[in-house]
């Protein structure tokens, strides 16, 4: 069955409280090379269908409507 891999990340300029905290924790743990951490979502969707175009359209739709909040997040995906 086709699988969509979806990546949801924060838009530029949106503060990422989790990323900031993890970065600070890593600092404290002695990982001095880490410059920046961004924590987003990785979503895998198993989807029925054979028409890749159609599937991509559907995935794009559910990302836009539900999986990401366009006010603060952006997304990319690939269908395999």
């Amino acid at each position, binding site marked *: 069955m086709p699988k969509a891999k979806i990546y949801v990340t924060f838009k530029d300029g*949106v503060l990422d409280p989790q990323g900031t905290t993890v970065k600070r924790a890593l600092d404290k743990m002695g990982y001095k090379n880490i410059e920046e951490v961004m924590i987003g979502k990785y979503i895998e969707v198993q989807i029925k269908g054979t028409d890749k175009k159609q599937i991509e359209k559907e995935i794009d739709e559910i990302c836009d409507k539900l999986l990401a909040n366009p006010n603060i997040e952006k997304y990319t995906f690939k269908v395999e």
Partner: protein
Amino acid sequence: MKFGIIVFPGSNCDRDCLWAVEEMKQKGEFVWHDSKSVANYDALILPGGFSYGDYLRSGAIARFARVMDSVKTFADKGKPVIGICNGFQILLEAGLLPGAMLTNKTLKFICKYVNLSVENNTSPFTNKCEKGQILRVPIAHKEGNYFCDDTLLETLLANKQVAFRYCDEKGKINAETNPNGAVYNIAGITNKKGNVLGLMPHPERAMKETLGSTDGKIIFESVISYLKKR
């Protein structure tokens, strides 16, 4: 007056809101999220809780509940809608209010009493308050870090949409009195028209001296007075 309280499967302040409405000697009714109409209410409350476990993002799934279309229509007609905590998050996700909610800067759930400064006393929800009045009301959330960009903030300010800001007991507003990292210490906003309020603090928990404060009442009093005049 008749208040409709929208109940999602994971709402958990629904009963508290009903109780608060009844404490104010008003009628209240639960409205199941699958309902088609909310037309026969004078005001709506979207209560706190975890509508769908707050999985994915708080309020993200709730926004698609069937009742939300009629909530929009209700709001478009200029009738008062209050979203408390999770209710606020849902209104944001549904686009009834601008902006978005991020996880608290501490990454932790915070439940405690805070002080709010009333920024605007002309809305249906604050007309009984003095401007700058300080209200003691509890918060209880993990995603209450209100976010908007500078442009939106300017718009909010220009339209007097900021309703409440976090402050200390003397009214001082700064980073230290900001419990969750919200932009501009924002605790509550209204829509442009002023008839939709979203706020993170729980006025329904501050209705009685024995619960720690009666400051929540003034928000309900304001709505009732507004409805009477309408």
